[in-house]
């Protein structure tokens, strides 16, 4: 997989009322606190998945022994969110942060939503394959969550395609999934160009449907993230960077950080 080229200087996020460019943590010389896979699907809720949650965590444990660095995963099941689902016992057993989000489908492609509230689930039919993105992204923002367009470079279901037609309310977009483990190099390249052109923050996710794909792409965080609230805070602040598993391993090794 070709890494996203270059680093992105992110423009100010007007929603946050901040100004000035954002620069990747490594450029500022700050250590990375954690690496999370922000996009994964499991057999618990996705009918096209072959990976179980425990399978993912076992795999992470095995890869850590081989030098990989991955601290957590966010399960983003297709078109649904069950607030009653808990993986606390598994998370503790394998020492991996496990958080829950959702991958929803909108009129400008798929969107990863972190911080799905009962109000959002009440207002929107999460199973809808054409949710109005303006309303959804605004509602997620207002509910204190974060919405990140997924696999931004893919045709039809990625933001880039719709951006070419001028259909996207970019004032509501702070970050996109610039590195997706299931996208081709060409598709990830388009997503990277979108990040550059629009001054967006970037995240990475494996889009794993099978065990061995987990952690293929990751998001680096400057601050520790062990809850959905902390995740949303970092996403809304734009303090994220997409990278591949190989890059994370190299960074962690260079910084002398222990794996896992």
């Amino acid at each position, binding site marked *: 997989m070709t890494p996203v080229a270059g680093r992105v200087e992110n423009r100010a996020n007007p929603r946050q009322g901040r100004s000035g460019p954002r620069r990747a943590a490594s450029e500022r010389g700050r250590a990375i606190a954690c690496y999370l896979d922000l996009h994964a699907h499991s057999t618990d809720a996705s009918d096209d998945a072959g990976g179980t949650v425990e*399978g993912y965590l076992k795999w992470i444990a095995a890869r850590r022994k081989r030098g990989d660095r991955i601290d957590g995963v966010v399960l983003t099941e297709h078109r649904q969110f069950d607030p009653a689902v808990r993986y606390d016992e598994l998370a503790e057993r394998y020492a991996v942060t496990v958080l829950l989000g959702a991958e929803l489908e909108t009129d400008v492609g798929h969107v990863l939503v972190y911080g799905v509230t009962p109000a959002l689930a009440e207002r929107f039919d999460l199973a809808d394959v054409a949710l109005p993105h303006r309303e959804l992204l605004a509602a997620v923002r207002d509910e204190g969550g974060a919405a990140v367009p997924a696999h931004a470079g893919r045709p039809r279901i990625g933001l880039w395609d719709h951006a070419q037609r001028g259909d996207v309310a970019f004032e509501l977009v702070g970050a996109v999934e610039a590195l997706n483990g299931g996208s081709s190099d060409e598709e990830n390249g388009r997503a990277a160009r979108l990040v550059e052109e629009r001054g967006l923050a970037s995240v990475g996710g494996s889009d794993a449907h*099978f065990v061995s794909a987990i952690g293929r792409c990751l998001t680096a965080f400057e601050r520790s993230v062990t809850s959905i609230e902390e995740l949303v805070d970092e996403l809304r602040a734009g303090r994220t960077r997409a990278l591949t598993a190989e890059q994370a391993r190299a960074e962690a090794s260079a910084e002398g950080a222990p794996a896992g």
Partner: protein
Amino acid sequence: MSAPPFEQRYFDDAELGDEFEEEYLATPERVATYLSVSRGNAQLDEEDGRFSDASGAQALGLERPIVPGVMSLSIITRLVTDWAGPAGRLRTLDASFRRPVLHGDRLRLLALVTDATDESGVGRVTLDVYLENERGERPLQGVAVVELPHRPR
């Protein structure tokens, strides 16, 4: 990690994270040979030429003719059964296509051990299996479960 073909694989040796692979060139000639032994299969006998004819494939929005899905499944099965050895048993293969496999694709057949459990003396190994093309895309991905014998004492 790979072993000479048809060496017996034992459950005791399978470790989570082990991987093995092969290269396979999906030539039009190989597809034609496969079709010739499968002629008449309803899933293959699409008369639109998708498996053999450039114009037929393009009419379906395909860049060029494609490899039959069941042929791709058979190829990945061979990777797994060769690895398992003569006393190994394929129990399940569950795979899906994300994209077509095109004629001429240089494929990487890849399998990774994702779990190994001993259930009442039966050694069961779970493998993620993939076909990956030279563009880094994975047209086929799935899960295979094989039973492997324990190493004789």
